[in-house]
């Protein structure tokens, strides 16, 4: 029988600086069998760093045929600090995939609106890449992305390619501009008047700090978007990924099993707003 807690070994192939305190890690399977970890956009993994324990991270890129995967990690605690210190070719553990996927069957041939704050762009990026890879299956795409300062924006080069993608609009904003910034300032909600998509037929995906999710949903509902077409990726403390450890439990649901992607209608049932 499978030991659910046993990690697979992965090698750090590349480290990419994203912001002053965040890096993206490109990982490849240590052994040649790449079939062991197949995931879909929206799911997450649990990373193992012996000596520091384990922590959950979302898949930050769309699935790759070579079994490579990406995670974007901000330095916030002991494990993430140690992870940042690792070098290319170092070995770490990965188990998963865990959690539900974005509702891929519900979004084909629809308009898509993405709203992200800070490192909340990471889980949305796996879906955005998936959409651009299969561009003809989707209609208009709008992406609203806010962060604290211009230097805190993830995927700076890749976002430029999104901006050039036909049928796609990208709106960026920062809370604290610097001399280099001539774009919008303020919270993501301040950019909502720019949304051109039809609220009745658009699927909305949000990820970011709790307060951003809470207020962005309130404002997006006022524009006529529907409760069951708004999805948020939630962040919770978790240890097992399989609904056993209890940390992410809320009213009979487990964010690790039943989530991390919930429609706003489901969130209301659980009595949570972020």
């Amino acid at each position, binding site marked *: *029988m499978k030991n659910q807690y046993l990690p697979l070994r992965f090698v750090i192939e590349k480290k990419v600086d994203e912001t002053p305190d965040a890096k993206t890690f490109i990982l490849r399977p240590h052994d040649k069998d790449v079939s062991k970890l197949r995931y879909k956009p929206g799911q997450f993994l649990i990373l193992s760093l*012996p000596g*520091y324990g384990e922590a959950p991270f979302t898949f930050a890129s769309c699935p790759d045929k070579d079994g490579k995967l990406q995670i974007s990690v901000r330095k916030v605690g002991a494990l993430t600090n140690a992870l940042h210190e690792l070098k290319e070719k170092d070995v770490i553990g990965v188990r998963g995939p865990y959690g539900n996927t974005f509702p891929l069957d519900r979004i084909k041939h629809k308009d898509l609106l993405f709203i992200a704050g800070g490192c909340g762009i990471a889980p949305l990026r796996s879906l955005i890449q998936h959409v651009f890879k299969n561009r003809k299956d989707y209609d208009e795409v709008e992406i609203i992305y806010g962060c604290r300062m211009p230097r805190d924006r993830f995927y700076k080069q890749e976002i430029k390619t999104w901006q050039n993608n036909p049928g796609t609009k990208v709106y960026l904003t920062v809370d604290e501009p610097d001399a280099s910034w001539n774009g919008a300032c303020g919270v993501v909600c301040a950019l909502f008047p720019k949304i051109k998509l039809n609220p009745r037929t658009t699927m909305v995906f949000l990820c970011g700090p709790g307060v951003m999710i809470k207020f962005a949903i309130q404002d997006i509902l006022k524009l006529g978007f529907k409760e069951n077409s708004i999805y948020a990726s939630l962040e919770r403390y978790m240890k097992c990924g399989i609904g056993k450890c209890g940390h992410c439990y809320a009213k*009979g649901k487990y964010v690790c099993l039943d989530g991390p992607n919930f429609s706003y209608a489901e969130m209301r049932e659980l009595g949570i707003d972020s």
Partner: protein
Amino acid sequence: MEKLFITQENLKIFVKNLKNDCDEFIAPRKENVDDIIFGDTKDNGRELSTYDGNSVTSPRSFLLPQTEPLFEIKSAKDCVLLPVEDRKKRIFYGVRPCDIKALTLMRKFFVDELADLPYKEKFENSTFIALSCDKRCSKECFCYEMDSGPYAKEGFDLQLTKIQQGYYVNIGSKKGSQIIRRQKKLFANAAPEFAKEIKNILKDFTKGIEKIDYKKLAGIIKQEKVKESVWDDIGVRCVVCSGCITLCPTCSCFSIADRLNGDKGMRMRYCDGCPYAGFTRMAGGSTPFPRHRDHIRRFFEHKLSVDVERYGTPSCVGCGRCIQTCPGNINIRKFINSVLEAQVL
């Protein structure tokens, strides 16, 4: 089902033989500080064949220990982890019906649903011999009210009931009947009057007490009809001693952490729980449950409402251990009564 009987003398022989057939014989034993705790008595004969009250801790601590190794870290640098297996054959003897019900709920959670291998291994190598109750374990016990005592309905391999001349024996599983078959000579068929004696014990036990309408209770909690001031009071009283989650036979939450010495070490799992503020706090410092009252509320909601929906029965089995241990006098039984009474008014 076959109804059997065993004398006190034969039970001693039965226990002696059982001990030869296991690695650990987990039974209630009197501690040097004058209380009763489950412990291994295979080699020391300290087990009590019958006893008053209940063990301070439940058998949970042998299947989901306070800390246990999950993996041996052979090399931290190369991320080489070897699973730690526990294939010990354990016999649990003298387990109270409330704890048997708890074990059944834990089996549903850890074994029948998506399985947790470390628990499943230990559980499947275990035999459970229940000892039914002829009187209340303590003034805090409310097993009959919670539908978990004084007899176990399922979840045991054998169940013993003390009667005047010896013990009445129920067989609860295939494993149970195999055990009996191997020592058939020690058992006799139960006389019909024994059933009558048991009926009288039950009558005495349940005199003047009513079962709790736990479905109604679950509904009230789910609909958030419990007054906010009740949760406020509970939050203020809790001093986060963690006694309740340590002793509760159905608490299952845990964390995982590594202990390293150089490049080698262990990946451990340890019991954790909702009263701690850090239980839901993320690495960045934010938490979806910033208020302490909501931590304890999770505990109550899970046991009294969510699990009723999930398993058809509450996962509070009325053992009363959390009430006995709480320094803030948080009393789940009084909570239940006051919630139900407030509804009646």
